[in-house]
C-alpha cells in the first residue's frame, strides 16, 4: 500500500493536495495498533478498513465545510468566487438549497476557464451569476461582500496555495476590508512553509493566448500562487472554522505526534 501511495505521489509531483493527502493517508492508516497483530490477515483487513474510512472522511469533509460556512452567507449577499473548487461549489449548493438569496460573481479564471464551468453549474442551481474578466475584480470589489476560494494546499503558516490570481484578489479584498474565506478539507494541510512565491516547487502549464506568440517573447506559465496568511480571514475546514494561525497548531498535532 505504501508503494501504491508513492505511485500516486509520483504521478503528479506538482500536486500539493495530492501529496499532503497521501501523507496524511499513510499516517492515518498506519497509526493503529493493528500492526501489532501477528496474524497478517487481520492486520491487513484492519488497514484496509482504515483506508476506506479515510475515503469516507474526505467526502464527509465537504459536507461539514458546507454546513459550517452557511452562517457566513447572509441574506442578499454578493460572493466573489475565483477558481473552480468543488468544496466551494458544495457550499453554494447548500446555501441555494436552503433557499438563501444571494448572487455570485465569477472570475473568468483564464486560461483554465474555471469561471465558465462554475457559472454553468450555478446557473443550473438557479443562482444569479455574473461573469467577470480577471482584471475587473478591483472594479467590482465595492459591490462584493465576501470572497470565497478553495485551496490546493494549506501551508504551515496558514497561507494557501491556489490557482493563479488568488493572491491578487486577496490583496484587493484586504485593502478594501472585505473578508476572504477559504474552504479546504483538512487533508490539504501540507508541511510546507513558503517564504515567497519562488519557494515552492514550480508548476508550469501551457497557456494558449489564441494567437501565435513570437518566440522571443517569454510567457509566465506558473499555475499556482501562494497567498500569505495575513490576507485571509477565515478557513472553513472539517476540523472547524479556523483562523490562519491555527493551521500550524493542527499540523503540529497531526504530524508531530506520530
Amino acid at each position, binding site marked *: 500500500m505504501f508503494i501504491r501511495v508513492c505511485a500516486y505521489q509520483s504521478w503528479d509531483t506538482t500536486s500539493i493536495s495530492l501529496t499532503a493527502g497521501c501523507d496524511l493517508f499513510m499516517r492515518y492508516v498506519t497509526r493503529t495498533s493493528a500492526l501489532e497483530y501477528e496474524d497478517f490477515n487481520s492486520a491487513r483487513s484492519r488497514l484496509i478498513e482504515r483506508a476506506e474510512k479515510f475515503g469516507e472522511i474526505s467526502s464527509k469533509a465537504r459536507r461539514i465545510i458546507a454546513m459550517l460556512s452557511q452562517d457566513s452567507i447572509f441574506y442578499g449577499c454578493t460572493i466573489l468566487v475565483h477558481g473552480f473548487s468543488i468544496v466551494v461549489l458544495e457550499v453554494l449548493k447548500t446555501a441555494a438549497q436552503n433557499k438563501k438569496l444571494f448572487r455570485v460573481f465569477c472570475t473568468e479564471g483564464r486560461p483554465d476557464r474555471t469561471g465558465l464551468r462554475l457559472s454553468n453549474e450555478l446557473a443550473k442551481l438557479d443562482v444569479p451569476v455574473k461573469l467577470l474578466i480577471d482584471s475587473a475584480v478591483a472594479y467590482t470589489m465595492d459591490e462584493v461582500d465576501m470572497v470565497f476560494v478553495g485551496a490546493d494546499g494549506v501551508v504551515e503558516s*496558514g497561507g494557501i496555495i491556489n490557482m493563479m490570481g488568488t493572491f491578487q484578489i486577496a490583496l484587493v479584498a484586504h485593502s478594501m476590508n472585505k473578508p476572504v474565506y477559504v474552504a479546504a478539507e483538512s487533508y490539504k494541510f501540507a508541511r510546507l*512553509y513558503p517564504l515567497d512565491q519562488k519557494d515552492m516547487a514550480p508548476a508550469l502549464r501551457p497557456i494558449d493566448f489564441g494567437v501565435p506568440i513570437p518566440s522571443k517573447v517569454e510567457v509566465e506559465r506558473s499555475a499556482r500562487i501562494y497567498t500569505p496568511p495575513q490576507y485571509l480571514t477565515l478557513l472553513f475546514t472539517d476540523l472547524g472554522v479556523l483562523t490562519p494561525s491555527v493551521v500550524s497548531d493542527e499540523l*503540529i498535532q497531526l504530524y508531530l505526534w506520530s
Partner: protein
Amino acid sequence: MEARRASRTVSDPKVRHVGFFTPDPNPHPGRTPLASDAPVSNALSPVMIPPPRQPSDRTAAVPVPETGQRRQTGADQVPVGSYNPSESLLSSSPLPSSPSSRVGLVDGEFSEESGGWLRRSESEKYASSLPDTMVERAPENSASAAPRLESKKSVEVTGKGGKAVLEEQNEVQSSSKPLKEKTTKAERRALQEAQRAAKASGKAEGNKSAAVSQGAASVKPVKQPSQKKDGPPVSVSVVSFDKKGGDRPPEKERKKDVPAPRMQFDDKSRVQKAKKHAVVKQTEARNRVELFRHLPQYEHGTQLPDLESKFFQLDPVHPAIYKVGLQYLAGDISGGNARCIAMLQAFKEAIEDYSTPQEKTLARDLTAKISSYVSFFIECRPLSISMGNAIRFLKTHKVIVRHAITKIRDGDVLLTYGSSCVVEMILLYAHEMGKQFRVVVVDSRPKLEGQALLRRLVAKGLSCAYSHINALSYIMHEVTKVFLGAASVLSNGTVYSRVGTASVAMVANAFHVPVLICCEAYKFHERVQLDSICSNELGDPDAIAKVPGRTDVNYLNNWANKENLQLLNLMYDATPADYISMIVTDYGMIPPTSVPVIVREYRRDHVFL
C-alpha cells in the same frame, strides 16, 4: 588483545568498501574452532550463565543490531559497508518466526524514530540476518565492520542515531523522512549486508576473548585514522547501546503502536550479540530472577580493574569521560541528578578540550564524539532519564540546521546580526553543501560580537560583508533573507534576543524581507512580554562610555559625576511577533503564533520524563 589483533585477518574494519567486494580469502584460523562454541552457548539452559561477553569480537563482526541497541546501531552503521545482497539474503537460514517478526517491527519502529534513516523493508532484511546464520557465512567478513568514515552522512546518522536513541520523545520530522529514505536506501542496504556478513563471521570466531574488550568506546568515526592501527577497533559498534532497553519502553510505545523493542536479556541470541559489541566486559549475574531476566544484570564490581587496565588503550575516550564512566560502574555516583551532573561536567571538559580535526566539521564531528561517549556511559550503567534529556539538548542543533538550509537558495544574500551559534552552524553547513550565497554580518557596539562570527565565516571561505547597525536601512535593500538567533521565544511569539535584533527585524519587515529566527525548542517559554522594559538585563554602562582604541573619544569620562546624565546599556530586547516570518526549531518550521502549542505539547512530555 595483542594476540587477537595479530591473528585477525579481517581487513581493516575502518576501511569502507562500497560496492561489491570479495570475501577475505584467509579466514581467521581461530574461527572454526570457535564456531563450535556458539551453538554450545546457545544450548545453555536459561538458568545457566552464558559465557562472558567478548567485546573484542566486535571488530570482525559488524554488529547486527540488537533490539535495544538496534536503533543506535542501525542508524550508525547504515552508511557504511559493502553491498552483497544476494549473499546475505540467500544464505540466511530460516529463523524462528517470532524473533524475526519482533525484530522486523523493532526495526520498523527504529526507522520511524531515527527520522527515516531506515526503511521498514530494509529492517525486515535486518531481521533475516540473525546470528544463527553466521556459521555458514564465516568467510564473508572482510566487510567493513567499520562503520563510519568521514562521510557526512555517516556522522550525521551516528549523531542522529544517538539522538534517536536518547531522546525521550519523537522529535523526528516526518517531512524529512521520505527524502532521507530515498537517498540513502541503497547505501544503507549495502551497509547492512556488509555488517551482517561481517558479524556472522565474527561471531563464528567465537565469543571468548580472553583478554580484552575493545578499547575505546564504540564509535569514533573520526578517529579512524588513529584507530586503524588498533586491531580490534571498536568501530563497529557505534553503538553499544545494548543495555538501554529497560529505560525506553514508554517512549517507544508512544512513537509507534508496536511493542517496544527491548533488549531481551532472556533471549540468548540477542545477549550474544550484545556482548560482542560492548566495550565494557561484564559478567552476568548468577542465578538471575526469572521475572527480571529481561533486564541487564551484571556484576558491576568486577569491571573496575578491567577498565582501569584498559585506560591507556582508550585514547579516543576523553579522560574525564572515562573517569565518570568508571565512577558509574563502581557505583560511586548514584542518583539521577548526581549522574546527570557528573555526565555534563565530563562533557564540558571533553568539549573544552575538543578541537575539530581538520577535515571534519564541528557539528557532525562533535556530535559523533558525544554519541560515542554516551554509548560508553551506557555500557557502564544505563542512562537515567535526566541524562537522556540532557543529551538530547546537546544534539538539537543538527535538526535545526537541516530545516533551515532548505530555505537557503543559490544567489541569496543572508543577513545576520550579532553572533548566534545556531545561525553560524547553518551558514557553515549551507556553504559546505555547496550553496552559493553571500552573508552580511551586522554588528553593534559595545559588544561587537559580529566580528568573531565574521572571522569564523571568512576563515571557512564564505563571502561576507560587515556593517554596523547604523547602516542597516542602507544595506537592507539588497538582502533576501534575515537569519537571527534568539535568547528565548515567548508564548505570544515575541522573540527575546540580543539588543538590536528588534531593529533588524523591523527594518527587514519594512523592506518585505523574510525574517527567520533559529532557536532550539528548549528556549521557548510560557511567559508573555509586551515590551523590552518589564524584564531585561543591564550591562556595564562604562562599556558604552568608552570606545576601545579611541582614547580621544573621552567626552563621557566623568559621566558618573553628572547628575542629570544616565547611561543605559541594555542587553536584550523584545521583537514583536508581527515582524517575524518563521521560527526554525528542532520541531520544524513554525509560525511565531504556534509557540504556545509547542510549549504546551512538548513541555508536557518533558515533565513526564
